[in-house]
């Protein structure tokens, strides 16, 4: 048994196990941590394909930044007690079930056709080829900033709009607070305890 197979097995168990455990964990922080674990598992999967760049980005962005923000929110809002199991939308569960089945079917189809779809039937050799000559950092850069430049830029505009929108919506409009500290003679601004 080669080393690759062992690593793949470990990755498989880790990613899938963490994903399943996530569904059954009660505590929101535990759920977030298990999600981190399954994302690290995915990074290992990318490593096995020789996609070092994607693996590093997976860890930096998802495991390192987004999930830390998740935890930050969970800790800040204190929603780590108990989950509310009511349905805010009627018919949510049947709909979720239907869409879940659809998604599973899609995933299975991709897994079945898999590499053939992406590389026109050349499998392992195609992966080697993609990762070899320019390396996958350059390869991704060429695809992202060449062929898919427009979608890439549109996505970034979308994100900026979302951020600006959140800032506008959450900004409290109170009149400028009178600055009590600076008007008192002899009071240094820095010394005021808040």
């Amino acid at each position, binding site marked *: 048994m080669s*080393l690759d197979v062992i690593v793949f097995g470990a990755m498989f168990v880790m990613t899938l196990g963490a994903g399943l455990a996530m569904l059954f964990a009660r*505590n929101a*922080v*535990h759920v977030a*941590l298990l999600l*981190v674990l399954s994302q690290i598992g995915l990074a290992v999967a990318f490593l096995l394909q020789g996609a*070092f*760049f994607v693996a*590093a*980005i997976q*860890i*930096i962005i998802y*495991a*390192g*930044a987004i999930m*830390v*923000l998740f*935890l*930050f929110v969970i*800790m*800040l809002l204190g929603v*780590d007690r108990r989950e509310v199991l009511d349905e805010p939308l009627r018919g949510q569960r049947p709909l979720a079930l239907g869409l879940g089945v659809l998604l599973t079917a899609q995933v299975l189809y991709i897994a079945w056709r898999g590499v053939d779809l992406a590389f026109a039937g050349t499998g392992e050799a195609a992966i080697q080829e993609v990762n070899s000559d320019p*390396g996958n*950092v350059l390869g991704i850069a060429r695809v992202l900033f060449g062929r898919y430049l427009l979608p890439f830029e549109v996505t970034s505009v979308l994100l900026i709009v979302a951020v600006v929108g959140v800032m506008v919506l959450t900004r409290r409009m*109170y009149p400028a*607070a*009178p*600055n*009590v*500290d*600076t*008007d*008192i003679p002899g*009071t240094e*601004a*820095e010394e*005021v305890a*808040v």
Partner: protein
Amino acid sequence: MGAIADFLGGPDVVIAIVKVVVAFAALLVATLLTIWFERKVIADMQARIGPNRWGPFGVLQTVADGIKLFFKEDVRPRYADRWTYGLAPVMAAVPSFLAFAVIPFGDHVTVGGERVDFIVSDLNIGVLFFLAAGSIGVYGVVLAGWASGSKYPLLGGIRSSAQLISYEIALGLSLVPIVLVTNSLSTVDIVAAQAGSVGNVDLFDGTFLQGVSELFEVIPNWYIWSQWPAFLLFMIAGIAETNRAPFDLPEAETELIAGFHTEYSGIRFALFFLGEYIHVVVISAMAVTLFFGGWNGPIVDEFLPWIWPVGWFLVKTIAFVYLFIWLRATLPRLRYDRLMWLGWKRLIPASLLWIMVTAVVNVNPEGVDEQTLRSIRLAVFGALFLLVLFVVAKGDPRLKQVVTPERPRSRRAQKQGVKSGSS
């Protein structure tokens, strides 16, 4: 020996295992020495003696402390979250070790026909790996704060997640100019690009200042000369990443008792500090690798030629560890809002600006003559200069007065009446 090597999967695997074990042991020893060094240096700066009982100059003090911590009772608070409480110290220590994997600490040596490079793993995305390890390291502090089931640690944990996320961005952006200049994400390539001397400065050739040109032959070709803004940004963000003074808000003892590790004791407590000191060593080593030529040094003798680069690397790294200690002994802690202000409003724009400058200067498109290129560069520099002038002239209101959000007015202000509303 051969049989063992074959069993493990050939000499490559054996070399990898040996490297990992050696790097692990070296980092542990480095931690022991760094803690001792810190206590000695700070004691010296504060006119004290510092540890002087165990071993020569008290160098074994950390070993004694470690043994004490190891045998201490392991206390877990009643409201602590069991699994997360145990996981947090490990998450704090392990990523620091991982980050060292991509730091080249010497040239190479040939053992029995096999070339052994002095780096645990020469990944072609080394710089990104360093950032990834740093971003995972955030979990240690955050989880410790939450899992302790206590107020002060929680405050420390929340502070640290905000702080580390903010400064991680600046840290990542400060590395981009180096990558742009080197055209590679590999730390080995970055060190290789800094070999030799500045050299070929022909500005003074043919004049009486010929000697000045020769002087440039001596100056090493380090990135610090051209990339000093990136270096400053890297160091500030790097110190913030290690949670040390003046950025030690997550464990601010005057406000939060001990912050995220208030409830920890014994070996778990020791793991946090193992992580922190290794992080200090790793950030120092990374600064050396990126800006100070890595293991390149002026003298490489015939006697044991492989040990000289390692020596140069160590000397430079120790200098940076000293800088860390010096800062801790000198600077007071930043206030929380000032920390955020510095991170988001100064470091990130500054690093973006510097990336632009570096990109423009290094761009070399084909089909564009040098004259046009120079004009473009000048125009961009001019625009940036005006921008900087504008920002500096505008200043920041926080530097002049305290901007207070909604809060009850102080009694003193109420006595003063309506006068306070006129600002």
